[in-house]
């Protein structure tokens, strides 16, 4: 990749970074004397504008070609573009939720850090190289640690941030260690080259080392998506972090990490063979690998088989632990943390049975985007209830439909969608995902895992309904109305409307995601 291409590919990231610096300058330089609400509004709106510009860059990148030499650091288009667009929209929603959340005086820094963390998310969505992946992950993670600790006066916030940091640090160490093995075994840091090298390697008998490397990589990525057994940080962090930070961790960070896993999965199936096309031009949808007729014939899984096994084990464990542990929670935030673990389990199932075509990738993207949207709404609503009652216990939701019927309706829609009740968007997400799994492989193991997932979804209905039962059925202890500030209400209504409408018209989002794979081919340049 030459520098001009690199610059073009990183335009969205650049836009976000510029916006982050701008926010800092404006907030610290010009608005020192202004009221906190004004500063929050200005900072958040600047951040939203930055997201808008970045989104424009993402969506207009289509049609361009990417020339490459012997390396490929980042890609544009395809899954990367969908994930990046999702990250930017979700970041903007998080920033809007910040306007009314008065937990800190340092709003400029908060917005700045959010934008920088989102930059990390954009980077890992498009990364094709171990080093770029690691840098992006660290950029995202460091941002998240800071955001978790942002409520300086809350001991809980500091404690959860420290736990998150220590856990994350150790996971990163594992990940890097795994990466070093991969590099040592394949001689390259590029994912495509590693996969191609693995075909030769599997005959040599470096088996245990491969397995160890893969498990370590899985540990590092499993930490990001909060998959069992690397989930231990999640409940504490979700409980202690300020609400917008928790929403950000639960949505944006998830989307980015799953985008990375999709990249890994699709490259593992469709690696691009640099040696065969020394000088070529790639069309923009490159992140879904390069499927030509010759590559479409399934290769021996080699590299992929143990990777799929690890993911399947993590998926099953996450579904079980997440859903069962959620049953016992009293804190709604911890409940959402365990539910996030469960949802990560479903998605990992889709990654374990990954398709050669774009079907699995589309289903997973659909799932993560809609899940992220729903979760942001859920954390927004919890933040409102928390501020009004001072608690995130289930009891705080008692009689919510009398205290604020609109808020209660939003909670109803979001939680039912999380449980996967049609016609809400969560139903289609699950349906597509499970259908994709079974279309890839319909053997006894995958059938059993899907059956487990469906059964566990039924279990999850119980704990979601626990919250709704308190909001709608059980008698209220306090009839005092809950006020919701207008911007927060707007965001919540937008999210709820999105969940309902996207659910009623599932083809809209599916079609949009699918539209990012225009032509699947690559152009060979004449040698010389």
């Amino acid at each position: 990749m030459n520098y001009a291409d690199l610059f073009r590919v990183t335009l969205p990231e650049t836009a976000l970074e510029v916006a982050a610096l701008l926010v800092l300058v404006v907030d610290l330089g010009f608005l020192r004397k202004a009221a906190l609400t004004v500063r929050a509004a200005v900072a958040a709106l600047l951040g939203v504008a930055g997201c808008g510009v970045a989104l424009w860059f993402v969506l207009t990148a289509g049609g361009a070609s990417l020339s490459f030499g012997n390396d490929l650091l980042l890609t544009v288009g395809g899954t990367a573009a969908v994930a990046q667009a999702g990250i930017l929209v979700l970041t903007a929603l998080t920033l809007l939720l910040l306007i009314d959340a008065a937990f800190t005086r340092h709003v400029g820094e908060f917005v700045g850090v959010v934008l920088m963390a989102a930059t990390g998310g954009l980077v890992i969505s498009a990364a094709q190289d171990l080093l770029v992946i690691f840098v992006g992950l660290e950029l995202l993670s460091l941002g998240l640690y800071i955001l978790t600790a942002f409520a300086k006066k809350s001991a809980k916030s500091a404690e959860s941030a420290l736990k998150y940091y220590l856990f994350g640090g150790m996971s990163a160490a594992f990940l890097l260690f795994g990466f070093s093995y991969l590099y040592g075994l394949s001689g390259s840091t590029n994912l495509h080259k590693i996969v191609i090298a693995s075909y030769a390697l599997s005959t040599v008998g470096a088996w245990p080392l491969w397995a160890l490397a893969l498990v370590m990589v899985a540990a590092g990525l499993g930490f990001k998506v909060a998959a069992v057994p690397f989930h231990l940080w999640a409940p504490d962090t979700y409980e202690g972090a300020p609400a917008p930070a928790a929403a950000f961790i639960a949505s944006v960070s998830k989307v980015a990490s799953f985008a990375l896993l999709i990249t890994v999965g699709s490259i593992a199936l469709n690696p691009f063979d640099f040696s065969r096309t020394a000088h070529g031009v790639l069309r923009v949808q490159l992140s879904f690998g390069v499927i030509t007729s010759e590559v479409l014939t399934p290769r021996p899984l080699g590299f992929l088989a143990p990777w799929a096994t690890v993911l399947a084990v993590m998926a099953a464990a996450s579904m079980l632990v997440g859903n069962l542990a959620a049953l016992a929670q009293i804190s709604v935030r911890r409940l959402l943390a365990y539910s996030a673990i469960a949802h990560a389990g479903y998605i990992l199932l889709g990654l374990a049975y990954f398709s050669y075509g774009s079907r699995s990738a589309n289903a997973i993207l659909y799932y993560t985007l809609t899940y992220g949207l729903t979760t942001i709404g859920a954390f927004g609503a919890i933040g409102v209830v928390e501020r009004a009652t001072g608690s995130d216990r289930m009891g705080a939701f008692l009689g919510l439909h009398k205290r604020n019927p609109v808020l209660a309706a939003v909670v109803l829609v979001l939680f039912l969608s999380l449980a996967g009740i049609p016609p809400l968007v969560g139903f289609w997400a699950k349906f597509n995902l499970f259908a994709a799994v079974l279309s890839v492989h319909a053997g006894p193991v995958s059938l059993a895992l899907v059956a487990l997932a469906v059964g566990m979804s039924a279990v999850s209905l119980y704990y979601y309904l626990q919250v709704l039962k308190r909001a709608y059925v059980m008698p209220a202890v306090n009839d005092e109305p809950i006020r919701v500030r207008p911007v927060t209400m707007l965001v919540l209504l937008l999210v709820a409307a999105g969940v309902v409408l996207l659910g009623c018209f599932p083809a809209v989002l599916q079609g949009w995601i699918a539209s990012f794979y225009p032509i699947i081919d690559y152009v060979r340049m004449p040698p010389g």
Partner: protein
Amino acid sequence: MQEGLGFTPQLTASSIAHLLWLIPTVPMVAAGAMSLLKQPRRRIASTLAIGSLAFSLLLSLVAFGHVVAGWSHGEAVRETVNFTWLQFGTSNVDLGWVLDPLSAVMLVMVSLVGLLIFIYSVGYMAHDENYTRFFCFLSLFAGAMLGVVISNSLLLLFMNWEIVGLTSYLLIGFWYQKPAAAAAAKKAFLTTRIGDIFFLLGIVWLFAQTGTLLFYNGGAGSMEPLALGGLLAAPAAMGLSAAGAIGLLIFAGAAGKSGQLPLHVWLPDAMEGPTPVSALIHAATMVAAGVYLIARVYPLMQAGSLAGGTTTALTVVTWVGASTAVFAALIAVAQNDIKRILAYSTVSQLGYMMAGLGMGGVAVGMFHLITHAFFKALLFMGAGSVIHGCHEEQDVRRMGGLKVDMPLTFVTYAIGMLALSGFPLLFSGFWSKDAILESAHKWQANQWPFYMLLFGALLTAFYMMRQVSYVFFGIWRGHKPAHESPAVMTLPLAILAFFAIALGAIGTPAWPWFRGFLEGHSAGFELAKFGEPGFLPLIATSTVVVFVGLGLGWALYGNRSPRAEEQDALEKVSPMVWGWLRDRLYVDELYGVTVIAFYWWWARVADWLDRRVWGGAVAGVTWGFRSLAHFNRFFDNYWVDGGFDKGCEEMATGGGLLARVQTGRVQTYLRLLALAVVVLAAILIWSSRG
């Protein structure tokens, strides 16, 4: 039988076709708004309902005008607007709507009759407490019915079909305090559901075979030659092609909705609902939806027939329709409830429509559907006016002489009755029924349906004469004197009466405008058609039959004023046959001792299994776990030290076993993280050995 000759696939749709979705949506949105209204806001509710339906009528008229304009320029309009609703993998489910003569005619009929009945309801329901709820349901119904009409996709049609069924249930049970109304609502819902299950099977099968549920899609729809060819080639069972089998399944759904044998039992009971509901849903529109459905999928029903021949599906439609026509007319003779007589008459007339579709094609069946909608709505609303005027009395034997007390109602009712009886030349019912008889006469397969329908016509004239004699002639036998209804109720009657006469003009053999319009060829005015061989004798036969029926009725009941305690004039002739007919030929009883008894016993068996077998299994498992728990407690108490006990207590309060690893101590977390990596790696290496 030659339908769709002039239709060419149209890929572009006019602006009115693009706006067609507004026709059902506006009443539905109005219903949604009404559902939020408080009970006392009566004026707003009825204004919203009438306003939204008036808007739909306006738009329907524009759409109708567009189709007529296209037709008069010699092109058959069929415009579709389709969109993808959802996709999974490589297959799509598309929805869409269609503007063609069939849907245009139905749109105008449904919105016009609906609007008149809405206006009438303002008077009829004026004293009801739940006025707002009534209009909310009525609006939802109108929206869904219009949705059925414009659907270009079997799936979209089915969705609206189900909403229509739901509102029918809600409105039959509108006075849910009355046990009879609640039971009737349940019966209607369950009976139509039986048909709907077959319908759904047909839909799924069609989708599996053709990959689309759109009717028309520029050559790729399921009702277009390409898909039909594939359906014909695919064999089903017993010599049927897939096309025939799917057609029969869809017909089962239509039979449920349109009260055909043997699923007709719910329709007479549905008269427990308010009379405007009976007029709108259970006479004019919803029950005709089944007929409309068959007309919509006619290419499928007809697929594989040679010129002038018929198909298995159409033969079944014909026989079921003709049997229903006679069967229900027989029962109607011996009923005494003013609405029940009309209800059986509706079942019978729906049978005529089905038979007309089966033997004569879309135009024949649809023409009777349209004329019947107007005169039957007129009769029901007239009956409502009578009931209203007689202080909620419904037994015809306790009425009489109302031609003096309720002159306006009498005149309009008489028009409706003559139209239904098929009084020659002047009334629309004569022409539409005559078209059916003519096609039955020409049907090559069998002449029996013709004689059955002719007998049905005789019965129709007879029972209507009987009813009118009871209600309007003779002397008053009620308690309080009757009074005429307010203008808001009689004005719609007058408008409907006008249509009951005038509509005949567009379907006479001399000027078959309606047929030409539906089938897409021009229709000229030729008096010579009357002179065709065999035509005049046919008209003469049906005229004689009608006069015999009317005359018999007048001879037996005219001006006699029999009291309720007396024996009926027919009962004196043959008490046994009369008893059968009065008890509705024991169909309900038959279902009671077969289907319902079977389910009752099956429920008993299931209950027993549930209590004894499964319940026992669950109890056994519970017992096992309880004993395990006891053992655990023993183990805990005596074997494990106090520290562990404390841990268990904490676990019990803090959550399940799984939350226990969540100690909150980050050292533990990190240790577990390392452990997890080791375990996972061990699993992997161990599993890849083998």
